């Protein structure tokens, strides 16, 4: 199977935010108490109950005023910092379609993925487990479109075969964000303005420390981790559970 990706054509987005609501409906995510801070944009950032949102960006260039809308979400990177950095195998993983999924059962609440993500996407829920856009894995596996794509009335959000969507996007001649970055983003932007106007990093990179982690420390770290688990078990048996905090702390020290 070829890789499946999102193509987000910002020129078609009217910020109706059907994507925000459809995602919450499908993924059974509750609303959060919100206040108006002087903007239509709400909630102000992604949360554990908000897997995708529209950013409202007001800019002015050479006297021309623009109101830009950007669908912010997990970009399902081809080279995913979150997967790389995750010490618990399978807590963050790649699906057959190439999306980045998560398995809360396996999440050890270490927060590493938060630091490993170049786009500030993963969030931790009330149970302290990782959560983010998973591309509606359940729907996609059943041959359906992700909920946000299904709800989008203007064709801003497209989901399908990477080759096809990229070829179509290239025909427009407009800048495509993320074709090459991080081995190709699984959610690319077909922009109607330059990336900087959308506050998109020109060259998104996984933090250098992560390479160190992945290639040097993680192999050792995992050894160390299981060593620590063993030690904790011993600790648990001899002293009690309230000291479990120490495990995470030690684990963070290992970064």
């Amino acid at each position, binding site marked *: 199977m070829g890789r499946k990706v999102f193509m987000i054509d910002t*020129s*078609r987005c*009217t*910020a*109706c*935010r*059907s994507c*925000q*609501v459809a995602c*919450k*409906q499908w993924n059974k995510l*509750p*609303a*959060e*108490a*919100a*206040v*108006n*801070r*002087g*903007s*239509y944009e*709400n*909630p102000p950032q992604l949360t554990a109950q908000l897997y995708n949102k529209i950013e409202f960006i*007001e800019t*002015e260039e050479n006297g021309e*005023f*623009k*109101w*830009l*809308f950007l669908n912010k979400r997990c970009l399902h990177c081809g080279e995913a910092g979150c997967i790389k950095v995750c010490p618990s195998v399978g807590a963050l993983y790649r699906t057959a379609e190439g999306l980045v999924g998560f398995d809360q059962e396996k999440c050890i609440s270490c927060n590493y993925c938060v630091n490993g993500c170049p786009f500030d996407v993963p969030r931790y829920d009330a149970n302290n487990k990782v959560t983010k856009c998973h591309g509606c894995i359940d729907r996609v596996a059943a041959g359906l479109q992700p909920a946000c794509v299904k709800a989008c*009335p*203007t*064709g801003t959000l497209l989901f399908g075969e990477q080759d096809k969507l990229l070829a179509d996007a290239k025909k427009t001649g407009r800048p495509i964000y993320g074709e090459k970055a991080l081995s190709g983003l699984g959610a690319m932007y077909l922009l109607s303005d330059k990336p900087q106007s959308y506050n998109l990093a020109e060259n998104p990179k996984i933090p250098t420390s992560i390479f160190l982690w992945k290639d040097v420390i993680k192999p050792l770290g995992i050894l160390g981790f299981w060593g620590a688990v063993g030690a904790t078990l011993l600790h648990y048996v001899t002293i009690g559970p309230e000291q479990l905090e120490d495990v995470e702390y030690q684990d963070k020290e290992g970064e």
Partner: protein
Amino acid sequence: MTNHWIDIRNSDVILIMGSNAAENHPISFKYVLEAKDKGAKLLSVDPRFTRTSAKADLYAPLRSGTDIAFLGGMIKYIIENELYHSEYMQLHTNAPFLVNPDFKMPGDLDGLFSGYDADTRKYDKATWSFQRDADGVPLRDPSMQNPNCVLQLLKKHFSRYSVAVVSDITGTPEEKLTEVYKIYASTGVAGKAATIMYAMGWTQHTVGTQNIRTMAIIQLLLGNIGVAGGGVNALRGESNVQGSTDHCLLFHILPGYLPTPKASWPDLATYIEKSTPKTNDPDSANWWANRSKYITSLLRAHFDSNLTAADGFGYDLLPKLDDGQNASWLMLFDRMFKGDIKGFFAWGQNPACSGSNANKVRKALTKLDWMVAVNLFDNETASFWKGPNMDPAAIDTEVFFLPIAASFEKEGSVTNSGRWAQWRYQAAPPLGNSRHDSEVMNELQFRVAQLYKNEGGAFPDAINKLSWDYGFKGVDGKIHHVDIHAVAKEINGYFLQDTEIKGTLYKKGELVPSFAFLQDDGSTSSGNWLYCNSYTEKGNMLARRGQSDPSGVGLYPEWSWCWPVNRRILYNRASVDANGQPWDKEQPVIWWTGSGWKGDVPDGGWKPLSQPGTKKSFIMLPDGVASIFGAGMAEGPFPEHYEPLECPIEKNPLSGTKNNPTIKLFHDGKDGLDEDVFYSCDQRYPYVATTYRVTEHWQTGVMTRNIPWLMEMQPSMFVEMNPELAKEKGIKNGDWVKVSSGRGEVDAVAIVTKRFRPFKVQGTTIHQVGLPWCYGWHTPNSGDSANLLTPTIGDANTMIPETKAFQVNIEKRG
């Protein structure tokens, strides 16, 4: 809409003005963007840079309430640069007609047309007429050069609307005006089409109807009516508001736009005589000459079929308006406020938030003996007695609340803006004790009829002689389950006796195939002649889901059904020349094959205009052509700019007539209710304000404020203002501010944004702010409706309230 949603994709230029389609009609943008994909230009004209403007090729700001000036400048531009479609105008409009030489215009009469009476605030329209020949047919100058012909008068009238003058009124930069004019007027050639998408931003003004008239004139000059991608397209604010209008939402019409009877029309014969338009032109179809068939068939549908011609088929049982009576929204609540109305059904509405001058509306509700609130959720109207500034102990109104099913919980039809009546099915049963509206009405009818039978009372026949055959009647005579299909069939109509028409025998009880078969002898019924053809012996046309598009222009004739007779584009005989050949060869709507019409259902099946024995193309008008000169209007046959009732400038720059001279003033500056005061050019309320909706909430928000996901996105009342004004007033983005008008105040969060800009008007800087009306006190912490600020004043023709331009003050909350 003269056209329909999908047809927007056929446009070469789309003007979105008086609406904010991206935010309030989000699905429409599917088609707007398809048009843009094919190279169409999108123009956004709005006081505020909106989500629509964000997608536009060109955005032009204008001060609220100055649309006629803006568009008047476009008319001048089109005529003086001769960009109009001459042949179209000669064939399909009254542009060549010669006007009464005594007719005078605002340029001569300081802002007034001839015939004005200041005491009655009405016009004597005697001079607003055409010169006619001995037979009564209007005289024409096909060259359109006669100084008294409509085109030359139009040219003279709008010659006063130069770009400089317009800019000084609207605050739009001159170069933006010219750019909009140039792009829009580029569609005056055959084969090009421009469309207008408008909504309440045009209607809710004291000159609302004339706003739309101005655009209709532009569309006729450019030959954009009847063609694919053209038309004058009202974006209706609710999924079925077109259907409710068709079926007599308004006081002045019965179903199918038949006039409401008046007290001075005592019998059916008089009604028909007085209300049927006449023509002496043998080439005019004058379709309304069929009125007798439609009113008679309506009466046959409404009332007991045992009533006879001698009974006027039940005409006496219809309610009548007093002569000159206006029973529109503002008048109803005015009378309620004055204690003249005892009872009120607030059915599927929330006037405590939606009504202009909502404080007056809320006070009016306290004067009622009883009120029945019928809604999905409790709301500001149903609970008005415990709202802000109310003393429940002092209010005697008895309030009943009837929970009602949501649209997804009932079967039936909705008619969209494009006149498509589409059947929908029940997706889920109603929750709890809530019921389908029809079940509630059925119960009401039965119980009221029982009361009349058991206890007597005045005028029982209006209820007891209603035909009420919407399902199986039990032994008690009650229908226990309403068959909604029976309602749809009654709307279509039946043959009430065996009838032979053109050699075919139609049996008693058969559904009438279309309105051409309706009779005025009582042999047919039809609850709405416009919908006759919607549910026939072939089945429920509304439920059709065929997806073929033989025309290639997106007519989809087998998808649902469209009034009239499944005609997808109104006035489509204007899309062809005198030989029946389409102006637009690539996107033809209809075309003459030599023996008949192909394409859409033609607007009358007569031969092309060049052939003898044909009828003109605008069949609903007595003269058979479209009205560039429209004498039916209250304030003049051509539009003229007048300032909103509350406005920021001393003087109308175009004349000494500041406001629309024919509006009904509820307060004349001296006398009237305190609730109805207005403040024009008053330093206490120096800022122009307008109201609007947001994508995230629907109407007053009764449904959407109960959906937490939507409240998360738009949680509370806000007011948008430009940074210069905010700085002047010491307001920062996100601050709470008080917005006040002469009639009330609301708290709102300041959104300080360059999407609003100050306007340069008459050498001064004018600031405008805007607020949504979707919030109400019933939802904690959400704020309250912008309609607490809006005035009691209406359009001169329709009385729709002027909520889109009024004056406010803003102050930072301490």
